[in-house]
């Protein structure tokens, strides 16, 4: 019986959600809309939508705010500066499937993901985000840290 209970517990853990920082997600969503993030520069390599991680969809566009743009033009760094903001439109079958964003604040990166219609799915530092992003330089997968001029 104990084995059965442990098995059921393990199975249920697969579908468990994580705490969503609704207030943080709302604030970041407002910032994205008010700053018209789609008017930001595109991240290098994202002149057109390109294949992305399947969890996000088929293809994606990545936008970077002026803080990231300035960092890319500067010296080599080992971490993105505070205020860095990256936003991503992900598409499946040509339709906007989700919007994802990550912003660096005093405490580190704040991740958020919304459906194509703007409903928050994840926000904060959920493992569903950090699990993959930890493989990138300072947690950014879309672009590499600047290496400075040769």
């Amino acid at each position, binding site marked *: 019986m104990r*084995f*059965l209970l442990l*098995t*059921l517990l*393990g*199975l249920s853990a*697969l579908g468990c959600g994580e705490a969503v920082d609704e207030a943080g997600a709302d604030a970041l969503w407002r910032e994205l809309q008010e700053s018209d993030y789609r008017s930001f520069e595109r*991240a*290098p*390599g*994202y002149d057109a939508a*390109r*294949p*992305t*991680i*399947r*969890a996000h969809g088929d293809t994606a566009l990545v936008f970077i705010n002026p803080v990231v743009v300035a960092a890319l033009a500067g010296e080599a760094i080992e971490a993105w500066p505070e205020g860095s903001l990256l936003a991503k439109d992900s598409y499946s079958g040509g339709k906007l499937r989700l919007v994802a964003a990550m912003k660096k604040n005093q405490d580190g990166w704040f991740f958020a993901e919304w459906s194509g219609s703007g409903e928050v799915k994840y926000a904060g530092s959920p*493992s*569903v985000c950090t*699990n*993959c992003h930890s*493989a*990138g*330089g300072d947690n*950014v*997968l*879309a*672009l*590499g840290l600047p290496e400075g001029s040769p």
Partner: protein
Amino acid sequence: MNATRSFTAGLRCAGFLGLALAPREAAADVFELSLGVVAQGGIEGQPEPSPNRYTLLRSGAEVEEPAYTSFGYGAGIAIEARVLEVVALGAEALYMSDGLTGTVIHDGQEVTLSLRQPALHVPLYAKGIWPLPVIAPFALVGVELVLPGLSTVEVEPAGAHAAVASAESHTLLLLGAGVETEWNSLRLQAGLRFALQLGASSALDDRVTVLPSDAVVRDASPSYQAMLALGASYVF
């Protein structure tokens, strides 16, 4: 004397064979339901993609992709409905740890990647049983639904390659064979199961996504499995 011994031994063999091969007595119940646990473990993997070489976008480094294999294992619950002792429909829910391990060549350097993928596997199958009295062989065919959780990747040496793994829900074609025996209301079974992912692609673009940062996203779902499955169930 020798002839008598041979005759007696022959009778014993014939008796044993008769006992083993004779059908079971008529079942008391036309319909049987059983509930139990099952555990399985074995080899799983992905063949080498085609083509298997690509260039990273930022550094221009060449990467050679291998075939992946690893050990997968898990356990869960099983339910089976049997009719006339010879035909059954079964369903299971297994919590599995799937794995893929391989060595990529990154800019001439060997880098070992170990992908792990927790997943809920739900085999749904039809089973045919030859109801012999002691050891009853069976064969099954069906599908196995796989609902993956979050993948993890270990890179050795660390930092030599930026790797991410991801998997989506998929379906395996399931084939199996084995034997079972019953003692009172306890049914024990052991068998081999083979599963192939339906629609699995070995095209490089379907297995690997290269990001502009040089991070590489890999499909973490095994495209084949060969498992030894052991089960115990209570027959109601």
